[in-house]
């Protein structure tokens, strides 16, 4: 009986595993062991990348029925941010005060609310006042960044990538503090004005709890501190980062990339997606437009060129390690695995992907947030009825999804070209992954990523064998998607409608 129940619950997974087993026996006997192992490992690397894009997609879709078409762009932003941080962080340090200032201003909503809600404003003037405030805020915000040399800041890492040698020599002088300080102040003002409009002056119907005000006040204070610190370390920061140990810098780059992605995701969810829950079609359209904007913006800042980020020192000692243990001591570029010479950095990506999967599964299974997410996937209205602030959970999950994609991006940056078409490419593969795996299921995304990654790797191998270009194998992954869709429209592990 137990076996029967086990089979019924996991039959899809077991069938997939069986097919993979048969294929691998067949493949290893016909290809020879060495190319087989190499191709499989490459497949696992790709799988890890695809999983990082797909995990966010499937989580967000499962919980809030939003399909984020800018997920690929989030991976791209992660890659660019991490590349910038690792190669020459002048750009990030130059913009950080401005971003923090705007965030501090925007976070003031709950702080301003108790003050402004008691203002006496005639009802018909309230909405006009709000519109006026927002217009003023936008004007101030634009004034704050006028004349700032974005492209000049952005070009520092470009130059550092193309001119090999001492990146410290390329750290360009920035605008002097005496004229720079006005910018964060203006942005703070602009953000605060938007927060003021959001607090709806004169409208006592909006209720903000006292502890919410206190919490926001702490957040604003923290952000203001960050603004001051970021303004002061604008020029010394990049130097300090660049003189740091390369491995530490890479770890920091991973964190910065993921944080930039998550922060951007939170901003996107609150400003662009949450007003459109009543019009789901427009949500999709706006994320698509956003992907377009991001790709254009990146081309504006860094030109439509591919860049190669260098690997961190832990993966760049010349020579081949005899085994994994030797690699840990030596930090070589390649490792010997079952007689196959394999780039060690790609192993790191596989480990990163597996860790991400395990971490996500554990979070979903054992934490309060995970419990809310799982419950929300099952029945959103019920979770809302039980008194959980679904709005905040949505923002959090969206940020989590984009953050994972961005982490994947910076993880991938050292071995794939960092270029503006990254977004489109990984978006397509992420979509195919979630279609295969089934929407709303993390395990499904993992299975889909595994299948797709292996298919890509073996497809590339076959394409090479028949002297075709890898583009053919990339395009033909659509066939797998078509087969799965025709057989099981909900995907391998998706909910059936």
């Amino acid at each position: 009986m137990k076996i029967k129940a086990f089979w019924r619950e996991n039959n899809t997974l077991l069938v997939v595993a069986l097919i993979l087993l048969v294929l691998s026996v067949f493949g290893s006997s016909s290809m020879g062991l060495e190319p087989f192992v190499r191709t499989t490992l490459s497949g696992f690397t790709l799988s890890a990348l695809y999983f990082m894009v797909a995990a966010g997609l499937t989580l967000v879709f499962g919980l809030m029925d939003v399909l984020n078409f800018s997920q690929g762009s989030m991976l791209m932003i992660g890659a660019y941010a991490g590349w910038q941080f690792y190669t020459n962080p002048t750009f990030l340090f130059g913009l950080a005060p401005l971003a923090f200032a705007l965030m501090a201003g925007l976070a003031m909503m709950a702080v301003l609310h108790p003050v402004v809600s008691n203002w006496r404003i005639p009802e018909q003037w309230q909405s006009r006042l709000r519109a006026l405030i927002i217009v003023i805020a936008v004007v101030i915000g634009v004034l704050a960044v006028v004349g700032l040399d974005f492209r000049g800041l952005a070009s520092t890492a470009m130059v550092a990538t193309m001119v090999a040698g001492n990146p410290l020599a390329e750290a360009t002088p920035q605008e002097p503090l005496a004229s720079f300080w006005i910018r964060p102040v203006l942005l703070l003002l602009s953000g605060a004005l938007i927060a003021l409009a959001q607090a709806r002056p004169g409208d006592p119907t909006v209720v903000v709890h006292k502890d919410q005000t206190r919490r926001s006040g702490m957040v604003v204070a923290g952000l203001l501190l960050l603004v001051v610190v970021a303004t002061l370390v604008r020029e010394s920061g990049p130097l300090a980062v660049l003189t740091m140990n390369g491995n530490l810098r890479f770890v920091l780059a991973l964190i910065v990339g993921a944080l930039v992605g998550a922060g951007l995701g939170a901003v996107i969810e609150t400003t662009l997606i949450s007003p459109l829950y009543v019009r789901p079609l427009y949500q999709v359209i706006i994320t698509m437009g956003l992907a377009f904007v991001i790709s254009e913006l990146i081309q504006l800042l860094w030109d439509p060129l591919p860049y190669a980020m260098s690997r961190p020192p832990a993966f760049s000692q010349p020579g081949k390690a005899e085994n994994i243990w030797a690699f840990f001591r030596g930090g070589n570029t390649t490792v010997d695995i079952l007689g196959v010479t394999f780039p060690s950095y790609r192993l790191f990506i596989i480990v990163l992907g597996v860790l991400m999967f395990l971490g996500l599964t554990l979070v979903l299974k054992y934490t309060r947030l995970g419990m809310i997410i799982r419950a929300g996937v099952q029945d959103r209205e019920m979770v809302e009825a039980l008194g959980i602030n679904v709005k905040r959970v949505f923002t959090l999950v969206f940020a989590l999804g984009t953050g994972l994609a961005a982490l994947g991006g910076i993880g991938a940056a050292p071995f794939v070209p960092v270029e503006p078409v990254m977004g489109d490419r990984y978006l397509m593969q992420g979509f195919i992954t979630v279609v295969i795996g089934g929407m709303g299921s993390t395990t499904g995304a993992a299975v889909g990523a595994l299948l797709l990654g292996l298919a890509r790797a073996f497809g590339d191998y076959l394409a090479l064998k028949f002297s075709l270009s890898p583009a053919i194998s990339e395009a033909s992954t659509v066939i797998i998607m078509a087969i799965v869709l025709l057989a099981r429209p909900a995907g391998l592990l998706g909910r059936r409608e």
Partner: protein
Amino acid sequence: MSEKAEKRVNGKTGAPLSWIKQHWGELVVVAGLILFPYVFSLLSGTSVSQGATKFWQGQLIVMFIMAVYAMSYDLLLGYTGILSFGHAAFFGGGAYAMALFLTHVAPKVTGSYRIMVGGINIADLLMVLVGFLLAVLVAVLLGLLFSAVSSRVKGAYFAMITLAMGQAIHILSKATDFVEWTGADEGLHGVPVPVWLNPTQFRLRFYFVALAFMLIMYLVTRRIVNSPTGRIFVAIRENESRVRMIGYNPAVYRSIAFVTAAVIAGLAGGLYALWTMSATPSMTSSALTINALIMGILGGIGTLIGPMLGAVLMEFLGHFFYQWFGARWPLVFGVLFVLLVLFLPYGIVGTWRLRRLELRQGWQRFLRLLKPEKE
């Protein structure tokens, strides 16, 4: 029934004069477009086929083609409520079909055969027509393929699958394996367009061809959306389960809408290939799909005329944006698009139709203020 409404009813059955009266707006636009090259040449002082006049004819030709392309997308998004992100595949498919045929097949045929009708060799003309037929064929096949794969899903899921498939087509159009045929990344250039339709030599002729193309396509599409089938498209957009309950199969009608839109986009692509005398991977890229979306949202989806207006505006503004902002001008459009989706989701025409009554009332109230007071 008011006098005006009665007139309108009579106009449908009655004299041509009232027909003209009813459609005067459209007729004025058509007449203006026909006269445009001549009026412009008079105003600018350049001859009809030279200088600024020629340049603006070219701009209008692109607008016409893009208007048809945007209109085909509106048939999907605005009327049937289908969100497809693979639309560029049809446009590009049509363009590639035309360009490939004219480059690789047509010269062999025209080189060895002559098809005489009344002393004129019409082989060239036939080749162009066959090219359009092939564009239609490619569009139908691609449309069927897309809808076969995604017939069981809808909404955002559908958008996702069409995007993946559109990307696959884009990747194939760039693939180096077919470099002798498609020119891979570079695309096909210098397509041997028949001399009498050469857009650089006979710009004015091409202008009228494109204008006629747009008008015919507009009439055809309008006929489709006003037909019983078109009503079902709208019904699917409004409430799919009710359509199913009445006894229509939504999947079939969605496929019909999809293939129809694909064909129209394919034809537009074919003409675009003739105009640029090339077919490049950028014609299948997702950026072009976004363009259709921007045009649609800008003009107002579900109105047919809106997306055409959006296309005209976008090409017109694009021309100036290129001068002001340089090569990255689409960024401005992208930002504009996001703002439009947030604040003006019904577009220009849609908002106008929604607010028409209010505006008219306001205008009348204003007029009443100016009237002399009656005793």
